[in-house]
């Protein structure tokens, strides 16, 4: 945003709490005046008080086209001066390098060449280390033919397991196997319970002449209900998607199944 300054009156932009306000015609002491090098964007970064004489020439070459009042000498345009819009001025610098002052040639020699090689080698090596975390590739596109070769050449054949004695405990990743283990125990438990149930049922059948199917159903669903609770306890906090597809799908199935059984139980309870 640009606010026209009235040249005749010694006005200034004062940075308010909420927004910028222009106080027209009220003279502001120079010390309080938010004047940095750039007129256009001075309110962004008020730091160095500039005397009135200096303020006359807009010196920020990045935004000088915004406020072209006083022609700026070529020498002044050469260097980035506005801190507020340094990015813009950088662009400007790149494309409009002055020819007034040529850069000094770089030192060249064995030492410099070696350092250069070291630098580039180091950069390459760091990218191959396990510390370089690749962004999760969410595009499961068609695999490119060349991808295979690149993968082969850049394959990192090491896994990084940090020494947890040096790191805070909370950074430890949660164990993923918990789910799988729970799954196996569940199965065994089921089978035990089912076995017991069968025995019970047989006994029941012997003693009373009742419908075996119903009791079987009930007990099994009870067991499942319990397991589901266990699962929920374990994964309550895990609100983030799992990286491992296998586990993901596994639990999806489990939940679906459990939900189905839940309904069934409800139905039974009412009935």
């Amino acid at each position: 945003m640009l606010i026209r300054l009235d040249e005749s009156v010694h006005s200034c932009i004062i940075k308010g709490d909420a927004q910028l306000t222009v106080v027209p015609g009220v003279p502001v002491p120079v010390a309080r005046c938010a004047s940095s090098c750039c007129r256009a964007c001075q309110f962004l970064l008020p730091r160095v008080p500039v005397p009135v004489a200096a303020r006359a020439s807009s010196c920020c070459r990045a935004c000088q086209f915004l406020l072209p009042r006083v022609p700026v000498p070529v020498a002044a345009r050469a260097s980035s001066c506005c801190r507020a819009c340094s990015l813009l001025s950088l662009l400007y610098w790149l494309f409009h390098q002055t020819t007034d002052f040529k850069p000094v040639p770089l030192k060249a020699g064995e030492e410099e060449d070696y350092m250069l090689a070291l630098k580039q080698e180091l950069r390459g090596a760091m990218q191959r280390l396990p510390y370089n975390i690749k962004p999760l590739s969410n595009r499961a596109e068609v695999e490119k033919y060349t991808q295979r070769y690149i993968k082969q050449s850049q394959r990192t054949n090491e896994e990084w397991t940090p020494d947890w004695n040096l790191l805070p405990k909370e950074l430890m990743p949660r164990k993923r196997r918990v789910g799988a283990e729970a799954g196996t125990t569940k199965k065994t438990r089921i089978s035990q319970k089912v076995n017991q149930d069968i025995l019970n049922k047989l006994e029941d059948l012997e003693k009373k002449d009742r419908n075996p199917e119903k009791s079987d159903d009930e007990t099994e669903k009870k067991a499942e209900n319990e397991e589901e609770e266990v699962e929920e306890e374990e994964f309550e906090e895990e609100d983030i998607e799992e990286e491992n597809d296998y586990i993901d799908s596994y639990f999806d199935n489990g939940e679906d199944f459990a939900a189905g059984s839940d309904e069934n139980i409800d139905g039974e309870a009412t009935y």
Partner: protein
Amino acid sequence: MTTQEVRLCGLLLREHFGEVVEKLGTHLLRSGSQNLRTILHETGMPRDLVKKVLCVLVQNGVCVFNHRGPGRPTNYQANSNKILRILRYPRYIYTAKTLYGDTGELIIEELLQRGEMTMSRTVKTVADRLTQNMEDGQCMDYSEVSSAFCKLVETHFLQRCPPVAGAGKADSAAPATPATQAGASAPTPESFPDCYRVPQVTIRGQGKRRLSSEDVDQTIAKKAKMDPETHGDEGIYWQVNFERFHLHFRDQAIISAVANKLDQTSSEIVRTMLRMSEVTTSPTASCTKPLSANEIFRSLPSTYNIARPILDQYLTLLVDDPMEFVGRAGESGGGMFVVNLHKVLANLARATLESIVQERFGSRSARIFRLLLRKRHLEQKQVEDFAMVPAKEAKDMLYMLLSQNLVQLQEIPKTPDFAPSRTFYLYTCNQLPTLWLTEACLPLIYPTNVSNVSWDRSDRLLFCLTDRRLLEKSQRIEAILASLQASGAEPEQLTEVEEMITAPEKQQLDSLRLHINKLDSAENQVDDTIFILESYISATATS
């Protein structure tokens, strides 16, 4: 912390650790100390990823955490200085090479790449890498590498990582006392007594050659089996002692300054003095411990062939020099001499700034700048007169310097209303303030890094889209060539693949490579300048 610094740090992180780390790193830099929950909340990244990134940052020393006792969340804080040191890594490695040969080079390189490692693992990797590069039938012995490692530790170039409070399982046993809590915020390795003690390590054997690619999978399986063997130094991690390297750089800078100002022989004398006082002088001392002329004479290597009277002459010359490299501390023992470390640094920094001004703003501006350095406070009119520059030009240059923050302006009002007509405007250069480094020098190094970004991101400035595509293409072709060679393809096939890059494309690629090389080596050399200014600032901060 300026925006530019944060941006530079972000770029460095991206180059070396990937985009994910960059995102979290810059977030930490901007927001200061934070706990895990806040980080998760503010970045919105998946929990496991954040944890992994934090592990990487801590491992590489970029991020420190402080544990504030049970029940209170651990805070994480990123350290921008550590990130900026990445720019100096080539120099550390090169120095290690000049001092300790290839072995030292590789040790430092490995440690820099991995942040911290145990001695046994370092020795193994280095020996393996050295063996890799040797001819067939030869291999590097572990003991040789570990002796080089010990030498590096003895000379304090390596140090143990300080014990961490509140990490892992260890902390539950030892309750944190207030004293350790205070220390935990800024743990200094020096305060830890075993800092430079090498543990008993039992490693025998020789470096192994890496096998051809199809065997890699087998070796991984083997490694997993071999891993349980212990070397007696588990849990003792080593890191590079940057401060020691910086002292070495400082000494080298002083020596080369003397060599440039006077001559080779006098630089050798100063070198001898610095070496003698290396152990006795504390890192922050403003000058070395006094050395008598006799001592210096005895310690001079005999190859220099400097006679006693000539030494005395050289010493008086050094003392009388306006740069004040060497000071006379007393008359006993044929004269006591010290090396004025801080004064030399100040002079070097001043010379550097003067030449920066001269190169960027011309010799007339440099004249004004020097004038202000000498006279401290001057009015605009006085500047014009003393510098003998026409009033209009002088005004231009002064404003130019002012806008670059190389010169400050002090307003002294005669009346409290700050009316311009009744105010003195004094231009000054306060004795090289800290502000200068960040304000004046970071922008210098800045453009070079922008180009590195464009290497990754096509939408940036220097290299347009076609270049990006070209780069990808050449990478692909190189990969295909490599894999074809590995599988033993015929030469015709290879040339066919090579011809996929046309001649003009090749030309373009070459020029691109040239540019990148130039920028990289410019980065290295700008870092030298920054080092001098930095060490001057740290010297003034302590004195």
